[in-house]
């Protein structure tokens, strides 16, 4: 049996003239959490739809749980759970009925399906709401029920398409905690997200997708290294000093600095460590430039993403500058 829970090789998907996927390859080891990270329209959802057998690929192959998605669709579906972008709970059924229906459609038998439904309601803190129609649920409860529904048949591989979109921060944190327990149980998870924080928080391995292509992959640390180490930054008090500060930072860091005018932030990647900060502080002091903030920070996935796709974002949203 393959050691990979998911294996995608050269997936291609076209919608008319538009190429949603232009040869996407990646694999996810059993028990791992993989984050597909990319902006809207990057092809994340299309990849998930192919892997969950909802649509066919125009090229390439994929296996899930060791089974070819194109030829063994039914067997794949028996082994996966899918939480689509919008929670697709049935609003006119109760939470419990929703879960039982999914269990029955997984052919667990009514008794097992009912027992499993109660177990999941408990696990997702929905026991009290289990008898209420899902249309009375809050957004966070709906998401939890949706996630519970994907787990009814104890799937080997779980697909979560933007699982926290539209949730408030508290509900998002709750959902993250639930996902942690699944990971501890050894479920393989592929999740798509636009939130870098989310990919960093949940995924062992991150696949960055843009315009239907994989543009980078690795764990969060490796991706951060691609940006070129830490960021040396300073925020001059007077916007008029931005250019001079930028020149200093560029000099000390040895890399062209980025300037974000609205927040008065100047930064550049450096491997000079804390010494770079003290050199910058000295230089600023000598020049008599006042700053609100100065320091060295670890790059975030945001920086990675902008380094990799900066061009694209600049094209579509010219007013948005790297911070």
């Amino acid at each position, binding site marked *: 049996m393959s050691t990979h829970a998911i294996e995608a090789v050269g997936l291609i998907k076209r919608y008319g003239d538009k190429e949603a996927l232009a040869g996407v390859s990646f694999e996810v080891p059993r028990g791992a959490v993989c984050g597909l990270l990319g902006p809207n329209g990057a092809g994340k959802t299309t990849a998930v739809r192919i892997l969950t057998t909802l649509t066919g690929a125009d090229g390439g192959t994929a296996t899930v749980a060791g089974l070819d998605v194109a030829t063994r669709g039914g*067997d794949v579906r028996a082994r996966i759970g899918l939480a689509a972008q919008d929670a697709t709970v049935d609003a006119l059924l109760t939470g419990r009925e929703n879960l039982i229906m999914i269990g029955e459609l997984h052919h667990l038998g009514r008794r097992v399906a009912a027992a499993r439904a109660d177990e999941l309601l408990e696990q997702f803190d929905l026991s009290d709401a289990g008898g209420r129609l899902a249309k009375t649920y809050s957004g966070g409860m709906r998401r939890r029920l949706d996630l519970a529904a994907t787990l009814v048949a104890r799937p080997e591989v779980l697909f979560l398409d933007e699982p926290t979109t539209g949730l408030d921060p508290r509900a998002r944190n709750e959902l993250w905690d639930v996902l942690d327990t699944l990971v501890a149980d050894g479920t393989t998870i592929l999740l798509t997200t636009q939130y870098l924080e989310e990919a960093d928080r949940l995924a062992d391995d991150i696949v960055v997708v843009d315009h239907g292509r994989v543009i980078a992959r690795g764990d969060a640390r490796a991706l951060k290294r691609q940006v070129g180490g830490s960021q040396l930054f300073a925020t001059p008090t007077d916007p008029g000093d931005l250019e001079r500060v930028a020149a200093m930072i560029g000099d000390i860091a040895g890399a062209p600095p980025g300037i974000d005018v609205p927040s008065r932030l100047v930064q550049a990647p450096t491997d000079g460590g804390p010494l770079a900060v003290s050199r910058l502080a000295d230089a600023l002091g000598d020049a008599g430039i006042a700053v609100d903030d100065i320091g060295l920070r670890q790059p975030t996935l945001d920086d990675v993403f902008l380094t990799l796709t900066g061009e694209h974002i600049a094209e579509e949203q010219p007013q948005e500058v790297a911070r």
Partner: protein
Amino acid sequence: MTVHVPSADTRRGSLLGDTWVVARRGIQHIRRQPEALSDVTLQPVMFVLLFAYVFGGAIDVAGGNYREFLMGGIFAQTIVFGAFGVAISLAYDRTNGAIDRFRSLPMAKGSVLAGHAVASLMRSLLPVVLMSICGLIVGWRIHTSVADAVGGYALMIGFSFAMIWVGVLMGAMLPSPEAVQGVAFTALFPITFVASTFVPVESLPSVLRTIAEWNPVTAVAEALRTLFGNPSAIQGPDAPWSIQHPVIYSLAWMVGIIAVCAPLAVRAYNRTIAD
């Protein structure tokens, strides 16, 4: 205690089992939407009572009383409107992602459509039962043999089944439940009214009269009147063939609708869900 879930290799489903799960869900939906519930319970009863008592006095039917005439028409209308229900529930499922969820499950091929069809048959036939009871109360009677009466109800079931495919086709082709509603009101209403549903065809102006004479809704209404021994909209040797042979004519429509619409509907449905 953790619930033991049988492994994926040992789980076996069936078309019938999956269809029933989807059908049961559809029936729950009807029960839990006040307007859908009233569509299948209060509305048919109200229709019978309104037409029987409000129009009953104003409309003359040759050779019988209006309440007896009315029932065949009102049954036919209910069955044709059955297309609505399935179209709306399919469009609703498609727009809210339920179809995708079903498709990500190891369900038997065709069970989603079949389940919708069964729920929709219930939606059409429950009102038929209620209207029958209501009709009996206001004075409608079946005057023919048991075999003819059974034939009448069988025709209703068969035509309901045919209308489901019209509904699936509408549900697959139209983008939203609201669009379905719009089309249904602009198309189905005239079709059911330019017919012998509520008035004898003779009372219509000539062009409308010809349309009504060949309208399948007229055919079903007339077939039911014939099979139940109720007064018919047109009697007389100069009536067109469609009116002289309503049972055969409506069976032909039924078979024709199924033969044309079912393959188209399945194709349209598969296309809309494929991406």
